[in-house]
């Protein structure tokens, strides 16, 4: 009798597992009967993107939408295709970088945010997506050196690097060799060829650690980072204007970009400034507050942009 029970156990266990999966695995129904639909908001794998995703998501939630977050999803090369295939509905982009991604690095981005976004939309239209009104808030790639290096070689601008680049080690993220406003741009606009390029992370803890222990002298950071000063880093000026209008702009799938969604998101972007980005980054990077808490405080402070 026990032997018979044994086999039944195996199949019973499988059946029980199936029931558990069915019970837990399904996405929960929207909690309010008045939910206007579900929006999946994604973010790149750095803290500022998580903050922006939370800003958009929480503002939409405040207006009755159910939000699914997919933060720290990856680089643009992972996030953009996900939007294209409909797995995510919205992500906080940066106008010039989005344009140069979707036009395969054709070099059409300019310092004019509106023009850049308009051009971006000609490409996004082909994949049923749209970029809304760009914000005044700006965050582009920036290249920093330690204060010691700056003093040693008398560095103020990126052009100052050209004669000595071959003596310096550069650190950035894995997408840098193929990202227009990174290595290719540094090479074509400034003629920089470094002694060595280390693959670390995109403006993350590894890059900071590498500065600290001296393994890199030049590194990629973001212009809205708040902890550069406290880390003893100096940003070199982009005197030849390699970086274009990397203003914050939401990239949304057409199917989700209803008039109301657009209005809601535009309100957030209209109120957002670069100083706000720096402040919020500081709260996350220096004070170790949560992106979602930081975003909530900001929105409450602005009364959710009525």
């Amino acid at each position: 009798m026990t032997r018979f029970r044994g086999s039944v156990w195996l199949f019973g266990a499988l059946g029980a597992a199936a029931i558990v999966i069915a019970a837990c695995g399904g996405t929960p129904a929207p909690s309010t009967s008045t939910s206007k639909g579900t929006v999946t908001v994604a973010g790149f794998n750095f803290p500022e993107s998580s903050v922006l995703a939370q800003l958009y998501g929480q503002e939409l939630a405040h207006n009755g939408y159910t939000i699914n977050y997919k933060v720290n999803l990856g680089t643009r090369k992972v996030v953009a295709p996900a939007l294209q295939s409909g797995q995510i509905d919205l992500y906080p982009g940066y106008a010039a970088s989005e344009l140069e991604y979707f036009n395969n690095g054709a070099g059409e981005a300019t310092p004019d945010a509106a023009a850049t976004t308009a051009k971006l939309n000609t490409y996004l239209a082909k994949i049923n997506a749209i970029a809304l009104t760009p914000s005044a808030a700006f965050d582009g790639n920036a290249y920093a050196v330690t204060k010691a290096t700056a003093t040693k070689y008398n560095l103020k601008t990126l052009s100052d690097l050209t004669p000595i680049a071959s003596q310096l080690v550069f650190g950035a993220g894995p997408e840098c060799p193929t990202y227009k406003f990174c290595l290719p741009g540094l090479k074509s606009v400034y003629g920089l060829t470094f002694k060595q390029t280390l693959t670390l992370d995109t403006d993350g803890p590894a890059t900071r650690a590498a500065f600290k222990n001296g393994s890199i002298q030049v590194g990629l950071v973001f212009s809205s980072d708040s902890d550069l000063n406290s880390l003893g880093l100096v940003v070199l000026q982009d005197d030849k204007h390699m970086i274009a209008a990397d203003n914050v702009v939401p990239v949304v799938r057409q199917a989700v970009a209803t008039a109301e969604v657009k209005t809601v998101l535009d309100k957030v972007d209209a109120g957002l400034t670069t100083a706000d980005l720096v402040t919020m980054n500081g709260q996350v990077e220096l004070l170790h507050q949560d992106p979602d808490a930081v975003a909530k405080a900001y929105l409450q402070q602005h009364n959710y942009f009525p």
Partner: protein
Amino acid sequence: MPKGLFLDVVDPWINWDWLSTHIPYVLAAVQEHVTLTIVAVALGLAISLPLGILAHRWGRLRLLILTVFGVFYTIPSIALFALLIPYTGLSGTTAEIPLIGYNVLVLVRNVLVGLDSVSPDVLDAADGMGYRPFARMIRIELPLALPAIFAGLRVATVSTIGIVTITAVIGLGGLGQLILRGLIESFHSPLVVATVLCILLAFFADLLIAGAQRFAVPWARPS
């Protein structure tokens, strides 16, 4: 406790404030983690049982299955997740295919060990009693193979719980999301909470399966 490297603010290894305000977030991660694990192990078992039985019968099939899944087993999970993205997107399916594949190797091996260990005398007696092959398999051989299968289930489950954390790189991850977040934000708490919960989850699952084995196979104590 050593402080983190770049922190001017003291970041304790577990910030209880953070934890107490993020219980729903942590629980959601645990739920996702458990779901991914259960699906991987259950489907792995569902595939391994028939495959194992067939492989036990036909030596050539055994070699083929063990080789194919054996090679699959040596491929790092993170690579498989990345490679499947163009085909199955950033979804649970992308996570599950490699997880299930790994579990099939472990479980098929154990099914085979279990079935191999059935004494020929027992089989002979069963034949003598009039059991036909299918009934003999279901009622005699499989139950006797259960200890080995349960051992395989324990290994597969604990291993899966660990690898599920890596699915964070495709936007899933369950508790792996907390680990990734701890890394990117240089923040200790989610990282430590996730590690401890993963270990507890693994222990609990192992205990559960060992307990089930005690129930289903009382004549063979789990090791």
